[in-house]
């Protein structure tokens, strides 16, 4: 139920713009790892490379010490060990319940386990009462909670969270952050959180990395990262003095 992640020398360009300029990160199994940085630093691009949505220009990504296999069947098996929640998640037409059960259905999970796990995941984010609501009628916070339930219902070994509470009210932020901690505690899954919210990184993460202009500036345990950063750019960032 857990996975190590090692990113080595990853680069990624869009046209002339080099978004990732050689990223090196190692995330230990069961760790809650935050990547902070300003908008446009390359955080989302990095997660999309990890999750096979983008092909890196160079470098290697190792999942549990091995690179992704090229053959379709083992690649799908690996992809299915990784979950992701985006900043503005897309919910399929249909009910909240349908959305949450999607990942189980594509994995051929049958009844009664399908219903049981769907209900459990909805309960974990306080959405049981809205299970039958149409996804299009949900508020932004409710939709994000459904997206989180949809990601954890399949019990991913590696969970990627991309600005998953940006633009949400404090109540929804609290609910989702509690759900992240609980998922990490219960399953021991590895979680990589990308955020520009330093307070969230402080509240959730074991270790934090600062990503600036496609490069990792500093990585450290959460306390040291925020209280005694080594790099002046990290110091400026955590003080809110970083101009970008």
């Amino acid at each position, binding site marked *: 139920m857990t996975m190590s992640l090692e990113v080595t020398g990853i680069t990624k360009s869009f046209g002339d713009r080099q978004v990732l300029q050689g990223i090196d990160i190692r995330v230990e199994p069961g760790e809650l790892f935050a990547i902070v940085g300003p908008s446009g630093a390359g955080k989302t691009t990095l997660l999309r490379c990890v*999750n*096979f*949505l983008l092909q890196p220009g160079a470098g290697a990504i190792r999942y549990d010490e091995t690179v992704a296999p090229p053959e*379709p069947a083992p690649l*799908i098996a690996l*992809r*299915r060990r990784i*979950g*992701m929640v985006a900043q503005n*998640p*897309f919910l*399929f*037409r249909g009910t909240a319940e349908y959305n949450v059960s*999607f*990942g189980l259905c*594509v*994995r051929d999970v049958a009844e009664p386990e399908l219903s049981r796990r769907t209900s459990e995941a909805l309960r974990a984010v306080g959405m049981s009462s809205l299970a039958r609501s*149409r*996804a*299009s009628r949900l508020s932004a916070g409710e939709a994000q909670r459904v997206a989180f339930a*949809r*990601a954890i219902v*399949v019990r991913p070994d590696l969970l990627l969270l991309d600005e998953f509470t940006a633009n949400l009210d404090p109540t929804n932020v609290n609910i989702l952050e509690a759900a992240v901690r609980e998922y990490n505690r219960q399953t021991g899954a590895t979680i990589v959180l990308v955020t520009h919210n330093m307070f969230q990184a402080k509240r959730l993460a074991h270790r934090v990395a600062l990503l600036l202009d496609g490069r990792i500036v500093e990585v450290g345990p959460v306390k040291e990262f925020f209280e005694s950063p080594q790099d002046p750019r990290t110091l400026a960032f955590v003080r809110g003095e970083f101009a970008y």
Partner: protein
Amino acid sequence: MAGDILHITALSLLVSGTSTLVATAIAVPVGTFLGLREVGSARLLRNILFTLYGLPPVLAGLLVFLILSRAGPLGALQLLYTPLGMVIAQVVIVTPIILGITTSVVSTVERRVKDTAFVLGADRYQLAVTVLREAAAGVLTAIMVGFGRAVSEVGAVLIVGGNQEGRTQVLTTTIIADVSQADYGHAVALGVILLVLAAVVYSLLYRLQERTLP
């Protein structure tokens, strides 16, 4: 007389409905496949499809006539001047329409739909089904347009069916025959039936379409 009209109406519905169903069975899977392909040969195929939108029914009818005629490659099947032959002619006309619209609808489904299904672990087949489900309203529109073309079509069914009384007469070809014999009252009555028939089918499809909206 009433029995004749009933028979003509039933045959119209049967031929147009069957050809739309067959065309849907061919066009929706192929259209989904083409819509999910973003480059290369799929684009060329799409352009060919859009050209076939304008395929004149009489030309389609002539081609099917030549294929089904005694000297044609499928002449041994003896399908000329039969309802099945008419269905084949209409399938040739309707398939490019449903295929083209389905391809367009699927190709314009948000990138996020595909990414979300991919991230949630869908394989290629499951991803295609998910995209199709999201595009359901548009695909139903394609089917409605296809049925509209089939039920109102006259040139191809006239050539391939021959408008034989009691055998291959449908509403549109009978209207043509009525007009040529100056039986305008009968032609108008059949025209009204054709409209009512289309209205009933469209309202059913429209209700189905409403259920697919978010």
